[in-house]
């Protein structure tokens, strides 16, 4: 009893001495654990204290009534009106604030690289510092789980989908021609520089109702809000020479680039497997302007124009000489402008945009005109309302007018499609551990005069501090390929349904993610030619078509990244498995399409060597064989190409020459000089001929290397990471 008596005495003395009351209490979390170091005080006064190591506090105040405030990092602030005369100690329980660590995030099907979000598996830098990607966004995505590498074709092949089933979207706007014009049996690069973008989100399925017209995947790219350079930069490498200029003011910035490229220097050093008649030559320019008219508003304008020319004799078994001359001149114009703003403290936000693109290929096969062009005008507006507790509701619309023109050996075809879509999506948190996203998208396409309505649902549940499971289901529609529509506009949308289950754990700079999926394809376009299968990849559909096709793709993929175990080394491993069959195009029976490889593995490592200020990376990829059409085998698409593998290296070194910043870089592709085969083709069965002969289609070159450098001439120059 002694201490209590003593305490009372002391209390009495203080009270009588200054007419002050003492407040005592304890601050805890919801589980009753003490929170030491919490700040406890009375609003508008100096009266207050910190909690001690047991979560207890004690302080005095001369006030009778006041508002008691309690704050603690990572917890919601607490406030309560109190009358101070009361002698019972306060018990205060604080609630943890929602943050990226303790709140679930819907992740099924998506792979993000962002600087703004902390919990992502990739950073934008990864796209440029990965060997084998050659600073090409698509090539970097092809190293992620869920993709199949198809060496001789352009585009992203995601979970059993063809290249046409993936769309590239910049700031919400679909890009009509995201890649340089395709050449026979050669993969083309993406047109956009990786460091134009502050965030990249690659969906391998089950994506949001905000996007449509892609049966398998969307690659979402968000442009940066400001320039990172200042002044003039000059860049020279084996393929091109470029000038860039950047300037920023308080609330606006401008970037301009111009380049001329010619592959002659490279081709004279690296042996080509192709018979070039006009070595690829290209020139282009771009202009970016960003303006911040208000604290919350942001206006961006981006425009680019490029021109290219090339010629080759490509291997063509259907031609008696075995080769066909191919010539192409491409002109591409793309512009997009977006305006984003928010009101009411961010509760309302608007994303809007307008884009226009025109792309034309003057193409000839032999003496025949196979020219094509496409034009796209698109507008989009999305309004988002943030609701309490992280919930949100989104409403949006988009419209586009697309025109296609094709010449097929002199015959002209043209097509206009007016397309409109509305979409709504809600995100609901049922506590911190469970989130549900519901979306609905309605579309209309004028060329086929049809509507569709596509529901999407995804949810995620947090299974531990660092782990969670996600589930996604969605219906996806895509207007059939325009080449079919030239002959038949009564076709319906092609459809895919995705079901995805994902588990991930991110802890201590290590990430493990496994995802399994089932995709059902329906209403695929089939073509009936009444002829034997024609494996010519450049053929133009001529047969009767309908939507009686179908198919499936199923499999799983695994991602492991570790930046911790070996100091300084960052490595990741991906494995993707897909099993798929389809009845579509000219297929008479269901079979695995030629763009499917069942197994894809990539091993990526990178390290920064401080002493020599050099960043080095190695990438090894393996893709199992793909089906190819063998006319001498009575089983359709039963043959497989050999496995394809590639080991590549890249390094970049930063230095200064006369106070100007200089970046030097080099890369070696296919170090082992493997003679990879992408597919085989057969000569036609000619009467009196030598029978059907098999041709191999492989890469443009085997082992190859690339060197280049750039210098920033401005005194205030900084390295352009594009070229690292």
């Amino acid at each position, binding site marked *: 009893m002694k201490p209590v008596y003593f305490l009372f005495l002391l209390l009495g003395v203080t009270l009588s001495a200054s007419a002050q009351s003492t407040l005592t209490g304890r601050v805890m979390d919801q589980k009753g654990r003490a929170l030491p*170091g919490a700040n406890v005080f009375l609003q508008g006064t100096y009266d207050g204290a910190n909690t001690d190591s047991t979560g207890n506090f004690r302080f005095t105040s001369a006030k009778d009534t006041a508002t008691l405030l309690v704050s603690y990092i990572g917890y919601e602030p607490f406030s309560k009106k109190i009358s101070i005369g009361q002698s019972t100690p306060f018990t205060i329980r604080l609630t943890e604030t929602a943050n990226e660590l303790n709140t679930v995030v819907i992740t099924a099907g998506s792979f993000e690289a962002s600087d703004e979000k902390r919990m992502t598996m990739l950073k934008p830098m990864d796209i440029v510092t990965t060997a084998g990607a050659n600073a090409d966004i698509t090539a970097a995505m092809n190293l992620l789980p869920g993709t199949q590498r198809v060496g001789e074709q352009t585009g992203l092949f995601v979970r059993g989908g063809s290249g046409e089933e993936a769309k590239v979207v910049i700031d919400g706007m679909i890009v009509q021609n995201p890649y340089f014009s395709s050449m026979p049996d050669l993969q083309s690069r993406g047109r956009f520089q990786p460091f134009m973008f502050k965030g990249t989100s690659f969906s391998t399925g089950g994506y949001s109702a905000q996007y449509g017209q892609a049966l398998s995947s969307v690659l979402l790219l968000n442009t940066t809000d400001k320039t990172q350079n200042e002044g003039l930069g000059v860049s020279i490498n084996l393929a091109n020479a470029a000038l860039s200029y950047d300037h920023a003011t308080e609330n606006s910035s401008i970037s301009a680039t111009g380049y001329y490229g010619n592959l002659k220097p490279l081709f004279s050093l690296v042996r080509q497997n192709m018979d070039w008649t006009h070595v690829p030559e290209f020139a282009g320019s771009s202009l970016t302007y960003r303006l911040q008219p208000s604290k919350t508003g942001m206006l961006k304008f981006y425009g680019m124009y490029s021109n290219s020319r090339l010629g080759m004799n490509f291997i063509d078994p259907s031609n008696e000489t075995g080769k066909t001359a191919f010539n192409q001149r491409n002109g591409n114009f793309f512009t997009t402008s977006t305006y984003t703003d928010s009101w009411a403290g961010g509760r309302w936000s608007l994303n809007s945009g307008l884009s226009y693109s025109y792309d034309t290929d003057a193409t000839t096969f032999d003496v025949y005109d196979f020219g094509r062009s496409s034009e796209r005008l698109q507008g989009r507006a999305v309004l988002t309302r943030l609701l309490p507790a992280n919930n949100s509701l989104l409403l949006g619309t988009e419209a586009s007018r697309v025109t296609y023109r094709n010449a097929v050996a002199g015959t002209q075809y043209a097509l206009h499609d007016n397309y409109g879509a509305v979409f709504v999506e809600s995100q609901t948190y049922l506590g911190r551990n469970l989130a549900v996203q519901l979306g609905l998208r309605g579309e209309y396409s004028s060329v086929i005069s049809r509507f569709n309505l596509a529901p999407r649902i995804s949810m995620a549940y947090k299974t531990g501090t660092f782990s969670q499971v996600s589930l996604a289901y969605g219906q996806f529609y895509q207007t059939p390929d325009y080449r079919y529509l030239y002959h038949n506009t009564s076709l319906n949308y092609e459809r895919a349904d995705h079901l995805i289950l994902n588990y991930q754990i991110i802890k201590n700079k290590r990430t493990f993610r496994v995802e399994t999926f089932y995709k059902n394809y329906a209403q695929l376009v089939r073509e009936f030619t009444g002829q034997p299968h024609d494996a010519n990849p450049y053929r133009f559909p001529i047969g009767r078509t309908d939507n009686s096709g179908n198919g499936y793709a199923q499999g799983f993929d695994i991602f492991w990244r570790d930046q911790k175990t070996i100091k300084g080394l960052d490595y990741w491993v991906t494995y993707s498995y897909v099993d798929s069959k389809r009845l579509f195009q000219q297929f008479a029976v269901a079979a695995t399409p030629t763009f499917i490889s069942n197994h894809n593995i990539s091993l990526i490592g990178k390290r920064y060597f401080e002493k020599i200020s050099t960043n080095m990376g190695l990438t090894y990829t393996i893709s199992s064989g793909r089906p190819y059409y063998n006319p001498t085998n009575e089983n359709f698409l039963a043959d497989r190409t050999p496995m394809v593998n590639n080991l590549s290296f890249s390094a970049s070194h930063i230095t200064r020459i006369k106070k100007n910043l200089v970046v030097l870089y080099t890369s070696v592709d296919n170090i082992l000089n493997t003679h990879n085969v992408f597919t085989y083709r057969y000569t036609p069965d000619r009467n009196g001929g030598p029978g059907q002969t098999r041709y191999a289609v492989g890469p443009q070159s085997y082992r190859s290397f690339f060197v280049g450098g750039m210098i920033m001439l401005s005194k205030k120059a900084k390295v352009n990471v594009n070229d690292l």
Partner: protein
Amino acid sequence: MKTILILAITALVATSPVWAQPIQTGSTSAGSIQTGSIQTGSDQYKQAMSQAISTMQSRSEKSPVSDILASANQFERIANAEPKEWLPRYYASLSYVYLGFMGKDETEKDKYLDQADKNLKAAEAIAPDNDELAVLKAYIAQSRMVVDPMNRWQQYGPLFQAGLEKAKSLNANNPRIYVLEGSSLMYTPEQFGGGPGNACPVLKQATEKFSTFKPANDLAPMWGQKQIEPLLAKCK
């Protein structure tokens, strides 16, 4: 903008928390604070601030996290009582910057720096266009970058630079601008434009500025001079 790169590289190299400058807010003795030449604020305010500042000065980077946190809390309480004064918010934010260097992992560091940002915003609302707040903004950006330099320099490098430039435009004589600039250059390898050769002129500039710098009052920020002393020793 070269500094951006420099910082990035520096940060990569920085294995020890060289960025965590000694937590000493005053350049000389704490005693001077007691002499009341403050123009604004009540006596209670002055007294509370003097006491809180001298407590903060008694801390160092070796102090336990709870002590620094207690200081931050103390300043936040004063800020709560004096909603028109920016200095309590300033010191609260500065305490969280120090905590940002001390956090045990990335998440914890960011948590403290979020709190530094909050207090900075509150201070800016009270005193817009204040050079000390611009310096603090740069300091926070630098701390953010150091948390994960390889991936963050692109985002926070320009913010660091912008903070320093804004501070220069408001008051080019603020020595703390050159403290931050010079110390970051010092830890940057020479081939990237850092090293003693490039850092020393800036650090000497800081010393010169300190010799003529007159704080607005006894509660005004005065840190920086001690921090660069060990760096200046390398300048011989």
